[in-house]
């Protein structure tokens, strides 16, 4: 069975917000809302570093790290448990999704989500990407929305928009139930964490910190499972074996 998940390599993330912009464009997210946010850890505000520059007496401790955050697609999701009309539910492939026809906008799921990943739709989305798959239907005003792992793209064999938009290949998407997929290998091979692990929500989103991974292992829109084996990294030359993330530890 398929169990979709994502690995985000925070050592590769450069905080450019390309994923957030691609998400808004792809999913027709209304103005002022974001399903995918790039938070900053360390400083007091977004895109604000902590520490001091090594000039004018500063101690050179300047640092800034990014925390990309969206729906974590928890296997044990509190948001699913509170919905009075069962509008938010977990699909068989692990994606937590919302039936916008059922949602009545009570926002109890927003209260239950520990990741603040859901937004309330005050305005009806009106923009649609002119080309490609950015044809997500408008949602009626007054529903709760969130990341769907771009399930409409997955249906077409394409990776989520955030994943292909990332210029540093920091997002890797695939089937966690497939032990040979990049997401499964990276979760096993690298030091990964899930957000707020003490709440035992068991997110399908993992974060790599410490050692940098090879990142997404191919170019193009296609999901890894749609490619010929093995997937080719952008730096692979003809006849050179594809990079697969190195030896297992």
């Amino acid at each position, binding site marked *: 069975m398929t169990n979709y998940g994502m690995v985000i390599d925070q050592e590769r993330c450069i905080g450019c917000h390309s994923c957030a912009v691609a998400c808004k464009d792809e999913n027709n997210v209304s103005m002022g809302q974001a399903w995918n946010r790039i938070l900053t850890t360390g400083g007091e505000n977004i895109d604000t570093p902590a520490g001091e520059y090594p000039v004018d007496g500063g101690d050179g401790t300047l640092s800034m790290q990014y925390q990309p955050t969206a729906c974590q697609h*928890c296997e*044990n*999701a*509190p*948001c*699913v*448990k*509170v*919905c*009075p*009309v*069962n509008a938010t*539910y977990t699909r068989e492939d692990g994606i937590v999704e919302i039936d916008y026809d059922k949602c*009545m*906008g*009570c*926002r*109890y799921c*927003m*209260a*239950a989500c*520990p990741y*603040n990943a859901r937004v*309330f739709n005050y305005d009806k989305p009106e923009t649609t990407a002119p080309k490609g798959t950015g044809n997500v239907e408008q949602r009626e005003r007054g529903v709760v929305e969130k990341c769907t792992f771009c399930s409409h793209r997955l249906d077409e064999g394409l990776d989520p928009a955030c994943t292909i938009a990332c210029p540093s290949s920091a997002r890797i998407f695939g089937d966690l139930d497939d032990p040979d997929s990049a997401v499964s290998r990276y979760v096993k091979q690298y030091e990964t964490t899930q957000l*707020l692990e*003490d*709440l*035992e*929500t068991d997110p399908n989103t993992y974060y790599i910190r410490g050692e940098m991974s090879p990142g997404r292992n191919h170019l193009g829109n296609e999901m890894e499972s749609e490619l010929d084996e093995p997937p080719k990294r952008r730096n692979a030359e003809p006849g050179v074996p594809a990079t697969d993330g190195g030896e297992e530890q």
Partner: protein
Amino acid sequence: MARRLDDEDWEQSVEEILDESTHSTELGKQMGRDAVRVSIGEMSETDFHKKYHDAVLDEFGVDDRPTKPEEYDE
């Protein structure tokens, strides 16, 4: 208990979200916290469902939460 459940910032944020809704802020706040307690394992899904069943029916006129136990008698 996870410290997160006692986080004042989270509670304030939740209140701000729910205050803009036409539905009960207090019920949403309590259910949200207890849903996390269910995830942690401090409360069973059955207990969670029973605890809020009447209140959910009063508030929404329906209770289609997926936590409904099979043996639960409406």
